[in-house]
């Protein structure tokens, strides 16, 4: 890794039943990924209020990941359907705020997908490195 390379700050909201367990599995299986992500455990991806995501960006995050169970596999039957709809609406709003929508990711990672979790974090980190630091008052905002 080159000295002084940009290291994005990433926050991940992981659902307790699938994605958090998937992240644990990545650990138990020693599937390493970039150390840029900080993890907050939530019961369900449907618990994540869109405002938490906005607040996280305000806190200086370069990227935010929300991960839950695969559709149809939600521990609470339907929680992730709500998050899917909710964050589909949030994405254009982030763009409006001047935060490229590529900085937000919603992923489905099951408790058995340690490899997928590791891959998601790796690709997200690499993409964010390419995007560069987030300019809080970026000129990308409209209006």
């Amino acid at each position, binding site marked *: 890794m080159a000295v002084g390379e940009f290291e994005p700050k990433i926050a991940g909201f992981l659902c307790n039943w699938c994605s958090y367990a998937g992240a644990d599995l990545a650990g138990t299986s020693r599937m390493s990924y970039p150390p840029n992500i900080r993890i907050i455990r939530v019961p369900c991806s449907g618990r994540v209020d869109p405002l938490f995501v906005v*607040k996280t960006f305000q806190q200086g995050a370069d990227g935010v990941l929300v991960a839950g169970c695969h559709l149809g596999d939600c521990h609470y039957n339907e929680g992730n359907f709500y998050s899917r709809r909710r964050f589909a609406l949030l994405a254009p709003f982030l763009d409006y705020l001047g935060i490229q929508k590529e900085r937000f990711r919603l992923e489905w990672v099951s408790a058995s997908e340690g490899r997928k979790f590791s891959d998601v974090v790796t690709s997200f980190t690499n993409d964010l490195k390419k995007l560069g630091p987030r300019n809080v008052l970026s000129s990308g905002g409209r209006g």
Partner: protein
Amino acid sequence: MARIGVFVCHCGTNIAGVVSIPAVLEAAKKMPGVVVAADDKYSCSDPGQSHIRAVIEQNKLNRVVIGSCSPRMHEFTFRKVMVKAGLNPYFLEVANIREQVSWVHSNDKEKATAKAIDHVRIAVAKVARDEALFPKKVPLTKRALVIGGGITGMQAALDIANAGHPVTLVERESSIGGHMAQLDKTFPTLDCSACILTPKMVEIVQHPNITLLTYSEVRQVSGFVGNFDVEIVKKARKVDAKKCTGCGICWLKCPEKVSAEFNEGLGERKAIYVPFPQAVPLVPKVDLENCLYIKYQNYVEGKSEGKRPMQCRICEKLCPVQALAWDQQDEIVKEKFGAIVVATGYKTFDPSVCGEYGGGKLPDVISGLQLERMFNSSGPTGGEVLRPSDGAHPKTVVLVSCVGSRDEQRGRPYCSKICCMYTAKQTILLKEHDPEVQCYVFYIDIRTGGKDYEEFARRAQEEYGALYLRGRVSRIYEDGKQLVVLGEDSLMGRPVEIRADMVVLATGVEANEGAAELAQTMKLSHDVYDFLTEAHPKLKPVETQTDGILVAGACVGPKDIPECVAQGGAAAAKVSALFSQEMLTSDPMVASVDNARCIGCLLCVQVCPYKAIDTQVLRNGRTVALVNESLCRACGLCPAVCRPKAVNLRGFTNQQLLAEVNALWQ
């Protein structure tokens, strides 16, 4: 004033080998509210736990953060330490610095340490906003409901009843016994099925703790663990069970004959009937569709047209105890139960969709269950194996396995598990019934996992001379009095043609009729084949996602008898454990409503997957949301949609999560 203690676990070298523990301790001491930071070689060990307790007591700590393995691993352990130290167990947060730090970032110790510090800081921020939570005590009804009177449900009912708890066993058919009652012999011991089943059936009906409701169905289930409200429809038999002695004169003399379902369409039964001679209870029911007097009544009432049916009533005239009750109506039983065991079983695949096997049109192509009925001495042929077309004894029999199993084209890609074994059993029984019979078995693989199973299947081939051909059957057609079976022997790599007298299709296992509807009534999940989903396929095989509802047997997936019995017993053990408590403790980490903030929009009611949110009218006339804490499963959908932020999820409150967000990076 929060007095927070941070404990960092080395986990041997699992954490300490990557993360610099002194650096984490140093950073932790500077975090707001932190009074003390200490480390342990193994925090979860006995000395580790004692050390944590001692430090809590010395420093008068009131909140604790433990930097260790995943909270999914040891959160519960550390909560118990809190209780021992005299603190509320919910003043605890676990920072995951093993699975999500040291084990995945071992190549960059510096960054791993920085991430561990961040994870500890996030936990410290959260713990400062933790609230003391107290589990509530909820009363429970120590009465169990078992749905399904097959071997699984019977075993569950008996085990619960023997533990001293009252049980209601509900069965859809007019007798208990299920599929096992249809079988003649069971693999791999060739035990007579009825000989091992009927004593259990009798035990059920005589057990003082068991209430048996046959010809009944569960219509509605509401409530929660310990307190389910269930509505059961007791269908009208038109026979007074209290008067009936089961003498059998009615079904002997009834003039109306109908194809017998219990015999899989072979042979006939009457319009007033018991499905099989050992039925429990031995009380007949009137077949409302075929009884002549019922038809007559319908005609008189103008419900049907055509020729006026005979006003038969022969059964009524002959009944020595006047047990016929024509005015009997469906009855609805409402009862409270503390736990429910679902054991609704399976049905066999319908081979009439398989055109290549004759599509159900060739009379001498029968299903495994039909052959089973023929073997049975109380079956339609009195225990003789006869060709349905002409009643001759078949000498060449072809058995086809995997009919409706391992067949992706027919939407049944799974293995039905029992067919290999019952096919092997049937080759043995065929030979025993008639030593001149030659059996041919077409198979994909012979799957014989189970105690003594492989030996049994080998015996079928080696001692009883069944010829096993590896390959599928492509076509079966009639040629004169015989059937021509075209198939392939994939080991020899050539086509095979066998002229057979009879073909037996080893039909696979399917979810029972109405399984999906019942699952929806009880809010259980099911897979694409309508098999019910267990809470965990390995570690919670009989639990479901709904506390207090257990699943057992073939309604979860294909199973043989020993597995079903084991699962019935397992479900009963869970029920007994639940009923060993005087009161239930409910998890306090559930949603709650701040009445002052609630505007009564009730968006939360709409999103709740458990219908756990009700409304209440306050004294000032405002309607607000009210969480039923026993129903709430703490998913957190409601606080996420609440606009005035009146609903919160204890343990994951908005304040806690925002504090975590604020603490993400220094």
